[in-house]
């Protein structure tokens, strides 16, 4: 299962009063990341009104290189070859390039990190987790160029999710926010 640390609220709230209530829940730490960022502005509102949220509280700022090394760990996991899915070789090659780019910017050696091939369900979970990680990391990066790089990687991983689902005959885009939404709000 994709881990679900406390972070956000869901995205599809349309009325402002609902978004304000969601912001309150965000500050109270009652939403999971799977529900995420919601009412988008509610996250912003939560951040503006209540600081950076429970997850960030009490933690020392980390360097960009630290953040990239953490993302590299997710990328290497997500970059495992997918067993029995046409087109997955290209995705694996793109993942290898992601890892090289991250390692280069983080000043980390990539040697000795083989990825074990996985079946599609596990691959989708790992890819989704990578998208979560990239998106979550964005405000923690000080260098604007690195934020752009991470957005490009996030977009690529989201594309991999859709492409793998297409190859498997599944619905490629099951939600509007690349996995950051789920069912109706509580």
């Amino acid at each position, binding site marked *: 299962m994709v881990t679900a640390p406390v972070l*956000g609220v869901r*995205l*599809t*709230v*349309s009325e*402002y009063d609902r*978004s304000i209530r969601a*912001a309150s829940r965000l500050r109270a730490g009652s939403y999971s990341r799977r529900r*995420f*960022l919601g*009412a*988008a*502005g*509610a*996250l*912003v*509102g939560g*951040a*503006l009104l209540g600081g*950076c949220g429970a997850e960030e509280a009490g933690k020392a700022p980390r360097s960009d290189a630290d953040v990239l090394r953490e993302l590299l760990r997710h990328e290497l996991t997500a970059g495992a070859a997918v067993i029995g899915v046409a087109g997955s070789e*290209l*995705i694996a090659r*793109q993942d290898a*390039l*992601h890892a090289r*780019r991250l390692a280069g910017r983080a000043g980390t050696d990539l040697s000795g990190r083989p990825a074990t091939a996985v079946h599609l369900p596990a691959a989708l979970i790992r890819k989704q987790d990578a*998208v979560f990680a*990239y*998106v*979550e990391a*964005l*405000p923690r990066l000080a260098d*604007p*160029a690195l*934020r*752009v*790089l*991470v*957005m*490009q*990687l*996030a*977009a*690529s*991983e*989201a*594309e*991999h*999710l*859709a*492409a793998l689902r*297409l190859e498997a005959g599944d619905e*490629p*885009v099951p*939600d*509007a*926010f*690349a*996995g*950051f939404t789920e069912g109706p709000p509580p």
Partner: protein
Amino acid sequence: MSGIAAQVAERFSAARTDSGMLTAALFVEETAALAYAAAAEGPLAGDERDLALRFAGHEREHARVFETILFALTVPVREHAAEPDLRVLVPGLRRAGREEALARLAELEGAAIAGHQMLGRRLRALDALRSVATVMAGGAQHLVVLRRALGDEPVTRTLESGC
């Protein structure tokens, strides 16, 4: 750069503040919703029509995200994209053939992604970037479907910049 990409880039580039950039993003998502709806009413049929209608709904959800962020920043949203805006940004969409319509939609999705990444570079309210990125990632998934429908290969990019 296509006409669509140039117009969208100009809209983002011209914005000097967070609220200006987010307003540009709102406009593009609203226009994308109109574009998918127009494609569903005209050039697309069958499963592709259904898909366009669903993606139009996604774009409306994306637009609500930016509207809500602007609300959180206490910026009133006074204007919304409408049919004339669609005619300027994606002229002739309703009369286009299937392939041209899909290509124009892909151009618009790519332009939006490039704009979102401009926000990644310039936005000062960094916490809002997470929300921007979720919209961008949703757009990237739309792109995969559009590229597949157009027969473009590969359908994914190593670094998706929207360009």
